Structures are given as C-alpha cells and as structure tokens.
C-alpha cells in the first residue's frame, strides 16, 4: 500500500489523528462564525495568542499555554461586551483592540531580540503534536459537540433576531458569550498546530464554501464538515509528498473548493 506509506511514521499518524479531530471541529464552528459575520472576531482572537504568551512571559508563568488560553477567553468576553456598548461599528472596535493586543505581544516578545523563539506559532507545525495534546483536542471537540446539540438552536435564534429570541426566553447575552468563549478555546488549543497566520482560513473557508451551495442548516453543516475534513486529510497527504508545510497545503485546497462551489452555486442559482 504505497498510498498509505506515510502512515508508517508516528508523527504522521499523530498529525493524521489531529487533523481528523480539528477539521470537523472547525467545519462545525465555522458555520456559525460565518453566519454571524464573526470572521474578523475569530481572526482577532488568533492574533491575541501572541499577547497571551507575552503576558505569561511577563508574569513568569511556566506554562504559557495556560496564560494564552486565559488571555484569549478574557479578550473574547471583553470584545463582546465592548462591541455591544460602544456606538462605533463592531469591526472598528475589534480592529482597535486587536491591533493594540498584537503590538503589545510583539513588543514584549521581541524584547532583547528573542522573537525567533516564538515565530513557530505564526506558521504552526502539526507534525510535532503529541498524543497528550491530541487528547486535549478530543476533549474540546466533545465539549463543542455537546454545546452544539443543546445550544445551536438557541444560538441561531439569537442571531436571527434578539428580541424575538427574548420572547422565547432565550438569553442573547448568555448564548453570545458562551459562543465567544468556545471560539476562544478552540482557536487557542489548535493554534500551535495550525499557526496564527492561517487558522482563520480553516475556520471560515469550509463554511463559506458550504454556504455557496446550501439551502438548509442540514446541508450547510454537512458540506462544511465534509469540505473541512476532505481538505484537511488531502492537504496533509499532499504536504507529505510535496514536502511543504501542512497548514498552507490544507488552506490552498480549501480555497480551491471555495472557488469551485462559488461557480457551481452561481450556475445553479443557489
């Protein structure tokens, strides 16, 4: 079986497992991020990873993963709060806070010319993932599934009309905050393997492609997860054979799918 020869290496096996967890997770989350027009929000969250690490370094925290996750959760809740109160448009608010946070992170981490130590997080490296870290990914996947089963309807209700949701006793603030925290957790847990530069592409592209050709929520979810897993697995295999980084290979495939679905959707008037 020459086709599967790459599976003989442990690091490829682990990477494969990780992709099998991350991609359906991203496909799922992406549906709501795209629907709620939160692409910029999740992008800002990705960038805040640097600041989280920097904050950890400043306070002498040993495990910067922890400071990264905590910072991202706080950052997400803060963004939610501020954009619901400030009169300026949401993307302006996000842009202001995102720029400030990434500048702060870069400033701290580059002090003394040490930034190259952290540059791996920009691109990410899925081949270096360990079994324990795969377990974390599986855990967050499980949490997301549970949230989706019990919370998705409410989240959709809130995003269509907040007052209407309120008339059905659904709390908009709760659902929005929960979703923001979940997005923050997912981005942070996977950012080391995917990289800051392209994590958002993986969140947005499969859902955006699915949207091109879907009419109902069932089709939307089905295609989003399908495209995500397909480009993830194929991207990993291609990256092994062509010897390029896995993340970019996956994103290029996902982009191709987007263009194809766009044309297909146009042609069939969807």
């Amino acid at each position: 079986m020459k086709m599967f020869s790459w599976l003989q290496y442990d690091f490829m096996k682990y990477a494969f497992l990780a992709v099998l967890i991350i991609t359906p997770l991203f496909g799922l989350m992406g549906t709501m991020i795209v629907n709620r027009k939160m692409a910029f929000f999740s992008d800002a969250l990705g960038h805040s990873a640097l600041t989280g690490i920097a904050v950890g370094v400043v306070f002498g925290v040993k495990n910067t993963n922890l400071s990264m996750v905590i910072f991202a959760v706080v950052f997400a809740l803060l963004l939610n709060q501020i954009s619901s109160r400030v009169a300026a448009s949401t993307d302006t608010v996000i842009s202001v806070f995102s720029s400030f946070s990434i500048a702060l992170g870069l400033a701290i981490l580059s002090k003394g010319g040490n930034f190259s130590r952290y540059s791996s997080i920009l691109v990410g490296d899925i081949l270096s993932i360990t079994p324990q870290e795969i377990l974390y990914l599986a855990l967050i996947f499980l949490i997301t599934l549970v949230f989706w089963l019990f919370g998705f309807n409410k989240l959709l209700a809130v995003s269509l009309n907040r007052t209407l949701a309120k008339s059905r006793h659904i709390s908009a603030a709760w659902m929005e905050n929960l979703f923001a925290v979940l997005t923050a957790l997912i981005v942070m847990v996977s950012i080391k393997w995917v990289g800051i530069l392209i994590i958002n592409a993986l969140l947005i592209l499969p859902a955006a492609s699915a949207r091109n050709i879907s009419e109902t929520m069932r089709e939307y979810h089905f295609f989003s997860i399908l495209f995500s897993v397909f480009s993830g697995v194929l991207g990993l295999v291609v990256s092994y054979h062509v010897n390029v980084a896995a993340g970019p290979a996956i994103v290029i495939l996902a982009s191709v799918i987007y263009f194809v679905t766009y044309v297909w959707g146009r042609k069939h008037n969807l």
Partner: protein
Amino acid sequence: MQKIIKPCGLHCIKVKHLGVSLGQQIILEDINLHIHCGSLNAVIGRNGAGKSTLIRAILGEMEHTGTIEFKDRENGKIQKLKIGYVPQALNIEKQTPVSVYDMIAAYHSNAPVFLRKSRKISEKIQECLKIFEADYLLDQQVCNLSGGELQRVLLSMAILDSPNLLLLDEPVSGIDQNGMELFYQTIYRLKENYDLAVILISHDLEYVRRYADQVILLDKTVLRQGSVKEVFQSQEFAEVFQAERSKIKK
C-alpha cells in the same frame, strides 16, 4: 396550536406604572394599560415616542419598573403570560442557508436543526403555516421570501405556541398596499377567532381607524387611550399629528 375558539373576554393583561430609563434619559414613564383578550390595540405616536421600547419592555428585553400582570377576570387568578412577537425585520442576508423550517424549529424546539428534520415538529409547523396559507413555504430559504411571505411566516411562528398576547411591529418595508390590507385583515381574523389580545405598533392611521378596537396614543407616557373615535378626536391627538390630520379627515 390551539383550536379555533371564540375569545372569552375573561382574561386581561394589566400593565401598571411601567417605566423605562436609559441612564439619565427617561424613555417611558408611568404607562398604565388594560388589555382584554379578543381586542386589537393599536399603539400610535410620533417617531421616537417610545413605541418599540414599550414592546421590548413588555417582552422583558429592556429593564423596566412597574408590573405586567395577566389575570383571569373571574377569580382574579394570576397566570403566566405567554407572548408571541412578530418583529419588523430579521437579521438575515442573501444566501443564508436557513429554511423556514430551520428558523421556526430553532425558536420552538430543542431538536437540533443541523441534524435530521423532525417529522413531528415539521407537521406542527406546517399546521400553523396553513392558517396563513404559507404551508408551501416550509422548505424555502428565509432570505428569499418576499415581504408578504415573510410576514405570514413570522405570524405563524408567533402563534405556534398559543400565546395570550400577540405583539406586533407593523411591517414598513417590502409590503405593498395590497399586502398591508391583507396583513390587517389577518390580524383582525386572528383576534376574532383565537383567544388572544393584540398590541400592534402602527404607523398608518387609516388602517388603525378601520381595524383597531382600542387606540393608545403614546409619547413617553400614555397621552390618551380609548376607542378610535375618542382618541382621534382628542386634543392630544391633534397636537401630535397636526401635520397628518388633514390627510385623515379626507
């Protein structure tokens, strides 16, 4: 959905001393309303009079002072008030993959809409859509509906749960004159045949004159309430609608 029953006239909704303020600014104060089931109550007033705020306060979306009670008039027992709400518009873009089924099921059931379509819920929704002759829309995308179709779907959704009170924001865009007439006729039919009270925010005094049982003239507080005749001939009404008055008389 409830069976068609004549309104019993025995329930009433009492709003007492309702007030809403945002920081220093008082938006509504000392609103007192008495609403009977089977009546169509139109809320009118100039722009910025607090009409939409009143609806959001009754729904509990905005914090308010005062009380809202739902009473059985015979024995005075207080019951839980179920409210159906019809918004003016939805926050939905072109190409959004949300079908009419998805939307209504999202608000009214816990069966995740991204999984299998539930036959039971589907039938229940279908039944409600039928009342407004909208059952053929079940599998259409919400963003592709016309203004009138969307209005009928939203109405079906609002009465799915047999509410005691129906709150409506009159549609302003995407509906032509014919559609408006149909909208008011539908509301009228609803309050005649189902056991519910209707509070409707209206911008069109001509329709109010023809269809409303009670009129509430609002400007921060209730300036005047009563029958159409009482309110339309009042001093307060003349002051608020000075400019528009000549149009109505015709």
